[in-house]
């Protein structure tokens, strides 16, 4: 094939990610911001797909879109006046914000430029979507199985540590959010206040 669709796909996805990210911060309704976030995350998942790490792409959609953004949207739906466009989208401290952003950019660029990018051994048909490979995962790319072996063989300890860490964080969040009920007020006891 003379035409290689990969760069086209990459730039389209990159535009989608950036555009949606902009929309997240510029949207006038919180819910729209949430929807734009979904677009961003989907774009990132698409980029993973382009790199043929399908497992990561799937997990990205499942965890971020399927769980985190949905919870976020739930939270948004519980806010006041969710239908009225009442969001100030520009920061009240533009110069501080700009300085912070530039610093972040510098750190990221430094990281990107200083890293030696290790690429997968390019022995396969990986970049070209010939009719032979199509969506099929090429053999040389680490498969789900390989990932599983990696996680549970050499990296078992860090893997387990991370899960314990998440559990601890969850319990801590619960402990912070839920104050013990005082004796005279049972947990669901609420009093009515006229605004």
């Amino acid at each position, binding site marked *: 094939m003379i035409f290689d669709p990969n760069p086209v796909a990459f730039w389209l996805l990159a535009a989608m990610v950036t555009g949606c990210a902009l929309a997240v911060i510029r949207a006038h309704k919180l819910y729209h911001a949430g929807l734009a976030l979904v677009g961003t995350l989907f774009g990132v998942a698409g980029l993973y797909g382009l790199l043929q790490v399908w497992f990561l792409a799937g997990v990205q959609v499942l965890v971020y879109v399927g769980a985190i953004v949905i919870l976020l949207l739930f939270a948004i739906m519980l806010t*006041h006046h969710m239908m009225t466009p009442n969001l100030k989208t520009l920061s009240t401290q533009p110069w501080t914000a700009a300085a912070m952003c530039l610093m972040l950019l510098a750190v990221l660029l430094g990281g990107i430029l200083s890293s030696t990018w290790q690429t997968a051994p390019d022995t396969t048909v990986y970049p070209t979507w010939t009719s032979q490979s199509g969506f099929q995962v090429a053999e040389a790319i680490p498969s789900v199985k390989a990932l599983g072996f990696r996680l549970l063989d050499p990296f078992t300890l860090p893997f387990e540590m991370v899960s314990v860490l998440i559990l601890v964080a969850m319990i801590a969040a619960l402990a912070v959010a839920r*104050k013990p*009920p*005082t004796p005279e*007020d049972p947990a669901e*006891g*609420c*009093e*009515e*206040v*006229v*605004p």
Partner: protein
Amino acid sequence: MMRQFPANPDLTVEEFELNMGPQHPSTHGVLRLVLTMDGERVVRCKPVVGYLHRSIEKMAENRTYTQVIPVTDRLDYCTSMTSNYVYVMAVEDLADITAPPRAQYIRVIMSELNRIASHLLWYGTFALEVGATTPFIYGFRDREKVLDLFESTCGARLLYNYLRIGGVSRDLPEDFCERMLAFLDEWEPLIREYEALLDENPIFYNRTKKVGILSPEAALTYGVSGPNLRASGMARDVRREEPYAVYPDLEFDIPVRTEGDVFARYRVRMEELRQSARILRQCAEKLPKGPFLEPQPLRLVLPEGETYVHLESPRGDIGCHLVSKGTDKPYRCKFRTPSFCHIEVFEHLVRDCLIPDIMAICASFDVVLPETDR
């Protein structure tokens, strides 16, 4: 209205109002419930009635005593026979007329058949409210057969206008008793089928057990009557306490449940279906020969006086307070309808329930709106 949590004053919950009805798939006509909700939980419920007010009581004052009968049909379109009956009973009581025995039996047959039709309708809609579609069709299918019996008797399927002062408008058709018995033989085993669809289903059980519990005291305070009262453990039935027509000669039980929840109201009605069938069989056996009507003058003039009579309709204790000033028209004709009292209970029962419970509770009381608004 904001609610604050004492543990965390920054955390407030905003309640919102949900206007359920007057146009909503499951408010049975035009009941309106103004609900104050906290999420899916009901904080307050205010039933609003009157959307179907047709001033039946006022209309009655401008018609002769006989002309009022078709108006009473529209009181409760699911049981026109008993609505007819309670008015006719009041007039007869005031005029001191006694219907011939055959008419008495026919009236009881019609009341009980109508009870079956009404309970079948209730069974269908109640199941529909808890989300089961099939029982609805089952209930309607068998109600049709009852309506066929009515049609052969008085020509109408819904608003019968069958009872007359001093009897009934026409005699039963020749083969009525055979057809009725054939229907009962065919239909009575089907009650088991209705029950099998719902009773043994854990989903139904969870949704109706311990939901909408009405204590006997509260029931009496609110003036609840009929199957709803009997489901709260009070064995009260006008047919037994102040027997009218030929009920003293008939054997039947009064099904009573003590739980007072939605399930109990459902069970009581299912048992009543069986009892009605039992009464009907006895009536078919005992039905005497003779006249079916003691003809009255077209313009019946009633002596001055007033009376209050009541009887057991499928929905409960329906009463008629009739005042005569010695003319050919009622001076006042007031109906005491059970549905009106039952709607008041919602406010009390629905509090702290979830939305699906509202449906189950409202449906379990078998409220019919035209009867409420009159």
